[in-house]
């Protein structure tokens, strides 16, 4: 038994000191302390953070899911994961979280930062393939198979498209100065001027062809629709609706003339600041005010004979001002003492309602209406709109346009803003209905809670030449609505049987009508061509070599883009990259006459740079595709019914390609061997070879592509057995002609030769075919 050691106070032998020297105490243990802190700060064993947790706080798969860690440790944990090489994978938030209205809106706003969305975007995104084009996210084609259905809609029913991407530009100023301004950027031979008498009263919409300042006939910008707003004072308003592919150039040109900076609402302050500065450099155009009004309107396009019925059914005009007097925007208008002509307009609309096609009305008519909320006129089920025919319309009604018809309060910016701000959302509308309408289905159209809406309708006449396309094909209405009300109108039209279409339908309609869609001498057309080229090239080179068409053997030097420069160089004596498309109406008419009568064509200026727009129709069998070559026939080709085939051509690159491939394979093998050797010598090198995911193809791939499709094409005129005179830019089977047709361009000098041979037919050959087919030629008179 051991003797017990107690403190002396308890009767033991041990004596404790009265005081302890802490410094001495710590100093004697300093080594221990240092070791301890060291081990805490830098643990010799690398431990993960969650391993440091006490056992009762540990959870399964903690390292995978950082949410199982306490929050204060999460950051360090992610840090550690990053160090170990695995990228920390965050789980996608739950659908429930994502679909919460605030989060959803945030997400939508984030996505809209890159591209502009139209008002009907979400409706479209659910049903359409969306593509990025011209800074917008646009519907391309419906997800269901609807190609033919969309054509049928344009010819017999109603096709509906959202074309709100057209940007309105307002030009204010005295007429003379506007006329002078536009004389710089248009040319009188291409059609009527902006200030023609026919357009000035605002009853009709017109089209002008814009060119860069003083560079006619080169540097075409685009075709632009415009109309005048009739105002009482001498300050007139001109509105342009510009396609988004041309908006930047048009804006630049106009602002350069007016020599002010962009006048957005936000920039108004800065504008005033620089006002004295501006006055110094004021030109004769500084009286004109140009404003871009992007996003102020929504514009829908209805095409087809039934579009009139759809509009008649869905638009209910307000004919009594007393009913709508409580609307804020009406109050605003009444303060300004503007007559709305509600009754007369409503009467006119009712009178023309029994028509069966919009093409029976005056061409390009502009109508301003004030309608009730479109949600009132919606049918319960999707039904097809029909016109009710009771009385035949007097012919005078169809000829005369009442002068008040085109006036509309829509063009007042503040009216648009008021209408937008006072909009009743769908949810509120439904709540209002359930509260106030006790009998379901019964509606009170004159309910003052829902405001009336000013709209503008613009007629499109469609085809007006029976020998070119059937009369009235492509006719329809354009409707302009204040922004905010796009979806209610859209849904009402849909419920009345309109079929929705996207950009593909715009392209197709232009093709079926025989019009040029984005002509290749404009900036927009060039960009479009390049985009198509790169798309087709990518597709081509994705195929394995055995499945690729060998274009060298077929003698098609550039299958994915039409080389206009080389074509013109071959047919003329020039070597610039200038080119232009003939748009002089009188010359185009004489050319068409000459083609029919097989006469000699007149000579024009700059014929070396000139392309003529033509419409080709294949005679007999065969289909036309994009980029097909148009060739000059010989007399025997037309008379004899024999097939004309392009002989097989030798491909000089074939051997080179094979050689190159062998070399490359050898090189790859060498590299592989080297790698294996390296691995054997350095055992502990466990560096994973990082795969390079760069989008640029390697030198070898580039060289091989060059051998498949040589890019240095020098001449194309004489590559085949027949001379090449032009190309087809859009070719397909045309439902309206029940033939394969195409829109294309040929060199002017080639047309001269064609006529001097007394021929009015051409040979066409697809890029993937050896066969030449005979086709009819027509000049497109309104390119």
């Amino acid at each position: 038994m051991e003797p017990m050691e107690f403190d002396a106070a308890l009767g033991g032998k041990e004596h404790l000191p009265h005081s302890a020297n802490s410094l001495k105490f710590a100093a004697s243990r300093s080594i221990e302390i240092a070791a301890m802190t060291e081990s805490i700060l830098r643990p010799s064993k690398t431990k993960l953070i969650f391993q440091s947790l006490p056992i009762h706080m540990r959870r399964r798969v903690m390292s995978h899911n950082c949410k199982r860690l306490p929050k204060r440790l999460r950051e360090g944990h992610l840090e550690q994961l990053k160090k170990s090489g695995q990228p920390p994978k965050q789980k996608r938030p739950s659908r429930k979280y994502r679909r919460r209205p605030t989060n959803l809106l945030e997400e939508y706003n984030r996505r809209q930062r890159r591209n502009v969305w139209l008002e009907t975007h979400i409706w479209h995104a659910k049903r359409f393939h969306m593509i990025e084009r011209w800074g917008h996210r646009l519907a391309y084609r419906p997800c269901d198979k609807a190609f033919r259905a969309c054509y049928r809609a344009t010819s017999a029913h109603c096709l509906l498209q959202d074309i709100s991407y057209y940007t309105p530009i307002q030009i204010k100023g005295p007429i003379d100065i506007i006329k002078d301004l536009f004389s710089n950027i248009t040319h009188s031979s291409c059609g009527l001027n902006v200030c023609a008498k026919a357009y000035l009263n605002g009853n009709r919409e017109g089209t002008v062809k814009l060119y860069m300042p003083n560079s006619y006939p080169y540097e075409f910008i685009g075709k632009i629709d415009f109309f005048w707003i009739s105002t009482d004072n001498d300050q007139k308003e001109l509105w342009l609706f510009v396609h988004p592919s041309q908006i930047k150039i048009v804006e630049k040109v106009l602002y350069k003339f007016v020599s002010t900076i962009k006048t957005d609402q936000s920039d108004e302050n800065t504008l005033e600041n620089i006002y004295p500065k501006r006055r110094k450099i004021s030109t004769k155009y500084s009286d004109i005010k140009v404003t871009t009004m992007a996003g102020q309107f929504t514009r829908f396009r209805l095409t087809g004979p039934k579009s009139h019925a759809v509009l008649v059914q869905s638009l209910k005009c307000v004919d009594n001002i007393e009913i709508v007097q409580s609307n804020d925007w009406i109050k605003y208008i009444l303060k300004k003492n503007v007559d709305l002509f509600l009754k007369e307009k409503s009467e006119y609309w009712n009178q023309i309602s029994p028509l069966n096609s919009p093409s029976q009305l005056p061409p390009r008519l502009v109508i301003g209406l004030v309608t009730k909320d479109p949600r009132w006129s919606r049918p319960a089920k999707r039904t097809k709109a029909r016109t009710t025919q009771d009385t035949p319309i007097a012919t005078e009604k169809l000829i005369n346009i009442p002068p008040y018809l085109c006036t509309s309060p829509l063009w007042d910016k503040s009216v648009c803003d008021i209408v937008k701000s006072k909009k009743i959302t769908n949810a509120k509308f439904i709540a209002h209905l359930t509260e106030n309408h006790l009998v379901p289905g019964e509606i009170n159209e004159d309910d003052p809670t829902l405001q009336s809406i000013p709209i503008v309708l613009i007629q499109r006449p469609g085809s007006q030449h029976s020998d070119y396309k059937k009369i009235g094909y492509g006719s329809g209405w354009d409707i302009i609505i204040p922004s905010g009300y796009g979806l209610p109108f859209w849904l009402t039209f849909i419920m009345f049987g309109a079929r929705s279409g996207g950009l593909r339908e715009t392209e197709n309609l232009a093709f079926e009508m025989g019009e040029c869609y984005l002509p290749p001498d404009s900036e927009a057309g060039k960009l479009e061509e390049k985009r198509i080229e790169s798309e087709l090239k990518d597709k081509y080179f994705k195929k394995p070599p055995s499945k690729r068409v060998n274009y060298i053997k077929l003698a098609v030097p550039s299958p994915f883009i039409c080389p206009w420069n080389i074509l013109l160089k071959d047919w003329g004596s020039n070597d610039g990259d200038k080119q232009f498309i003939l748009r002089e109406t009188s010359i185009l008419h004489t050319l068409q006459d000459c083609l029919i009568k097989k006469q000699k064509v007149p000579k024009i200026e700059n014929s070396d740079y000139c392309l003529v727009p033509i419409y080709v129709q294949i005679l007999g069998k065969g289909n036309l595709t994009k980029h097909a070559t148009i060739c000059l026939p010989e007399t025997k080709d037309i008379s004899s019914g024999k097939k004309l085939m392009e002989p097989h051509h030798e491909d000089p690159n074939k051997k080179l390609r094979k050689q190159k491939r062998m070399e490359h394979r050898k090189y790859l093998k060498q590299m592989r061997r080297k790698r294996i050797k390296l691995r054997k010598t350095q055992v502990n090198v466990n560096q994973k070879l990082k795969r390079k995911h760069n989008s640029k193809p390697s030198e070898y791939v580039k060289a091989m592509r060059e051998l498949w499709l040589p890019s240095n094409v020098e001449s194309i005129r004489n590559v085949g057995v027949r001379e090449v005179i032009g190309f087809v830019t859009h070719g397909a089977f045309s439902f309206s002609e029940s033939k394969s047709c195409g829109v294309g361009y040929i060199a002017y000098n080639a047309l001269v030769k064609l006529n001097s041979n007394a021929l009015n037919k051409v040979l066409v050959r697809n890029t993937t075919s050896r066969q030449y087919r005979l086709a009819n030629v027509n000049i497109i008179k309104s390119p």
Partner: protein
Amino acid sequence: MSEIMGDENIVKKKQDHKNPKRFPNKKHVIKKRLPVRPIEGDNVIYVTKKTNFKAQLDKCCDLLTKGENEIILHGLGAAIQRCCNLALQLEILFSGTCQIEVNTGTVDVIDDLEPLTDDVDFGAQVRHTSSIHIRIFRTALLGANK
């Protein structure tokens, strides 16, 4: 719709001294509008110069054999002849079971005068075109001729 190109020249000659405005002068170009259709329906057929004759004949036969009691054919201008032809063919095909009733009339069609120069306004002119309306109706019951 129907083609009036064919008889346009004749109309012009007649109207020469009466209405000099009718001519395509240097200031205007003539654009055509779609003529107004009197009625529309499943059994109403508009005969044009462009539509395939056989296709329309088949369509009429289909309608009649499927129990339609009457079909109405409309023809305008140069399409009158085709319209008559169609009706007579149908009469032969359904001989004894169908009868024909013919009405003729005049239809006002509108041409737009689009200005070619800046100093003139849009115009319009009314042209009168002859039209034919043929009603083909069954006299015997369906299946009687089988």
